[in-house]
């Protein structure tokens, strides 16, 4: 690991601790290596993710900060620009728009902004993006339910979702698989079950 990247990470961690206590973001080392970090962002208000705590995996490349860090969601999330399966993120500043003067703090803030403002025309997850564009109500319902289910977002849980999920699991399907199928088919229990049995 080059010395620039280590000093930069050390400095960034210090800055984040002092500056960002109020901004609902957090970054810490993962098994004491500067190549492997864990981040946390809180879902911003007025979004279906409000109050949920989303964990991030941050990998720092050798050539950091001249090349972007590799960031993905560890907590599952229903969002057009984030893969609902792998947690991979589609965000320009993590790719070709990365600039050496950007920091992990700016990356996390950008991710928070991405949660409030999705870009369905440049999707990472085609299924979610289609639902976002064609059936916004189902999208909001799903995204909120996922945030409550996986990211411990507060608030009353949608009873319809709970019931359908319970029915699917009672038929012997795993919870995660059932939730994915139900979300994909906009909570149409029949088609979801059909998909699962095939």
């Amino acid at each position, binding site marked *: 690991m*080059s010395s*620039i990247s280590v*000093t*930069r990470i050390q*400095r*960034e961690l210090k800055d984040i601790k002092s500056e960002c206590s109020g901004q609902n973001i957090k970054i810490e080392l993962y098994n004491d290596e500067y190549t492997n970090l864990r981040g946390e962002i809180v879902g911003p208000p007025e979004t279906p993710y409000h109050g949920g705590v989303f964990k991030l995996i941050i990998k720092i490349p050798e*050539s950091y*900060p*001249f*090349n972007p860090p590799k960031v993905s969601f560890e907590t599952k999330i229903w969002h057009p620009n984030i893969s609902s399966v792998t947690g991979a993120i589609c965000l320009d*500043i993590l790719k070709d*728009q990365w*600039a*050496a*003067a*950007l920091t992990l703090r*700016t990356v996390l803030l950008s991710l928070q902004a991405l949660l409030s403002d999705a870009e369905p025309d440049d999707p990472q997850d085609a299924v979610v993006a289609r639902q976002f564009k064609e059936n916004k109500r189902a999208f909001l319902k799903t995204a909120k339910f996922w945030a409550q289910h996986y990211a411990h977002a507060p608030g009353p849980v949608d009873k319809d979702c709970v019931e359908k999920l319970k029915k699917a699991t009672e038929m012997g399907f795993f919870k995660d698989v059932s939730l994915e199928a139900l979300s994909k088919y906009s909570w149409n229990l029949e088609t979801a079950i059909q998909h699962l049995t095939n």
Partner: protein
Amino acid sequence: MTDMLNEVQDIINIPSTTLRILLAHFNWDKELLLERYYEYEGNQERIFADAHVISPFRSAEHCKQQTSCSSISCEICCSSHSASFMTGLDCGHIFCKDCWATYLAVKILDEGMSQMISCPAFDCRIIVDDSLVMQLIVDKHILQKYQHLMTNSFVECNSLLKWCPAPDCHHVIKLEYKETQPVKCDCGREFCAECSEPWHDPVKCMHLKKWLKKCDDDSETSNWISANTKECPKCLATIEKVGGCNHMVCRNQSCKHEFCWVCLGPWDPHGASWYNCNRYNAVDARKARDIQERSRQMLQRYLFYCNRYMNHLQSLKFEHKLYARVKRKMDEMQCLNMTWIEVQFLKTAVDILCQCRQTLMYTYVFAFFLERNNQSIIFEENQADCEKATEMLSEYLERDITTASVAEIKQKVQDKYRYCDTRRNVLLKHVHEGYDEDWWEYFE
């Protein structure tokens, strides 16, 4: 490149580093740059902005702001440096020299960028000029790579410049005019200015490219497969028929389908009435047979031309050995009271032989794409004449050269190579005339 820079700089008075970026932005088309520059007279800011540089008329103001405090923290490595160790472009974003050097090295080595490296600040697209790169990078290899990338972009963008395609040759050829033409590099390589392949008169670049692709891919293997095999109608396994019986049983253990090789229908209904298989005449069956037939013919046609093309290519390789033999013979002759100039005819003969072979080789590529018509028959006659003459010359040079007396040899060799050269020129002239007059019709 420097010539062009100086030329434009005489007209527009701006720093050469800025000018270089502007020229690169206009793909090194200086006329276009000048035209635009004067079109927006008075509003040249826009050109500078499009090319992602700061206008040189404005940059002076920024410099003053930078030098206000003595110690500044670099935004990349987060450590403090004295103001003299910080540097940056006219956009005003400054970073320490170490970070700059690493940043540029990453861009040049890992991403292969030269013209388009931008300022490392977020959302700042101002392009790094070459004087800064030269000043910051100490590693010789990186600088070399940078210069190479710069030159490369200059050559690629300039349609009158061509890299020599020979391996390890770093020469650039300057063309007089934009047209298909043979060019010769100082390293001895002769190539087509348009496609960089060896000079391939009379066939056109487009057809040669198609031909080479055809030779390269395994498309002919699949042609063979479609000419000699059929698929099992049930499991689609590819089957090559090796016996005479048309009652096929698929060897795929999980399939074992029984079918008729001729009509590909199930075997059961054939039964006893097989020998006048009524489905044989059905439209579908005939269509399927026609497709197979055509594919077989195409393959044969390709093999015919490919065979002759390869044959000349092979001979051409052998003729290079002939040079060595001829050289020995020439030395011998010089011992027999002949002057150096008098024995040059032998080398000329081999030169012409090679030229003829190369031309003949490419005429087969030309012929492969050619549809038959009256002119193509004349072309084939010419080709045959040239080929005959070439083979005679080749034979004479290889065999009879050792026996006869020197004067006789000289007479015969000269006769033969002159005839060869005439036939070759006739052949080429006819093809070129055909291009001009639109005689040629092509397949596909």
